[in-house]
């Protein structure tokens, strides 16, 4: 936010900028960002639902808190199990939500599909239109996933984008970008790296990071 034209701004939050203090940079409050129609709409609908008794304020708070407990370790457990149990891998590819349930993971109701990498095939996910992401399985997406740069460039020059992430994919490997623009969500099952023979599922899950399941990274052995 520019301090230069403070006086021409619409001071909708009633801030007083006339302190005349030294120009010490300060972190803007959340409320200093623009208020969009959707923010107002979201707030209004929430308040109306509570007012009409559809749910209570506590229910809304709990739901938000629950959503934020979703995180990549859930997806990592699925991948690790798939690596060690081919029958589970097949079920995961068939119906990821049901397979997640087998491990006690609630991956929500929006259909999620697993995209297995194979020798000679690498997958990566994006939503070019907005920011669709398997939130219930992997938690909130990273900011860069929602950026216009990632969304436009990963379809145009996926190999260059991955190289910038430090991930080089062999020119002979077929590269598939999955644009989840409609009703399905995707996550990548990377290939199990060599050198992990005999590892436990827990050990394997530790090397499956969020980016490995987006497809912008490959699982690495920690000792490297």
């Amino acid at each position, binding site marked *: 936010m520019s301090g230069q034209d403070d006086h021409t701004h619409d001071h909708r939050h009633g801030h007083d900028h006339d302190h005349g203090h030294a120009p010490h940079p300060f972190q803007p409050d959340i409320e200093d960002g623009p208020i969009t129609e959707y923010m107002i709409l979201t707030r209004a609908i929430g308040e109306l639902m509570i007012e009409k008794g559809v749910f209570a304020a506590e229910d809304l708070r709990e739901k938000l808190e629950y959503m934020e407990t979703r995180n990549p370790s859930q997806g990592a457990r699925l991948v690790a199990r798939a690596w060690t149990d081919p029958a589970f891998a097949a079920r995961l590819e068939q119906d990821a939500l049901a397979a997640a349930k087998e491990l006690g993971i609630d991956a929500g109701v929006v259909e999620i599909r697993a995209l297995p990498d194979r020798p000679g095939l690498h997958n990566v996910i994006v939503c070019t239109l907005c920011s669709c992401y398997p939130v219930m399985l992997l938690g909130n997406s990273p900011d860069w996933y929602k950026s216009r740069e990632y969304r436009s460039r990963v*379809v145009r020059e996926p190999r260059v984008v991955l190289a910038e992430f430090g991930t080089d994919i062999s020119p002979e490997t077929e590269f598939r970008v999955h644009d989840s623009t409609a009703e399905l969500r995707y996550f990548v099952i990377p290939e199990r790296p060599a050198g992990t023979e005999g590892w436990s599922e827990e050990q394997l899950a530790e090397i499956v990071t969020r980016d490995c399941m987006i497809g912008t990274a490959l699982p690495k052995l920690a000792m490297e």
Partner: protein
Amino acid sequence: MTGGTTPNSAETRPRFAPGDRVRVRAAFPPGHIRTPFFVRGREGKVEALAAIHPNPEGLAYGGDGTPRRPVYRVAFRQAELWEGYAGSPEDATVVDIFEHWLEPAEGGAP
């Protein structure tokens, strides 16, 4: 909400099958459209029927999204999408596209 892939009698039968060559309509109507601009007018190959789902173009404006529409996974070759694309000729972008945005490609037999 999950659409599933089993059509019921009230719905359109899927018009395309895996392997069919299709062209995305080069249309630019206003509204809540889930078809990315970079594939409009482009030719691709149907990989699979992904789901049969309420139409988001109606849902977004308070409609019920009926009739539900088949959604396909359509693969586009990167080398055909982007001039001067550097990568394997097999590289592809796979996009989920609602049936009413697709028409058979000329000489569309697989």
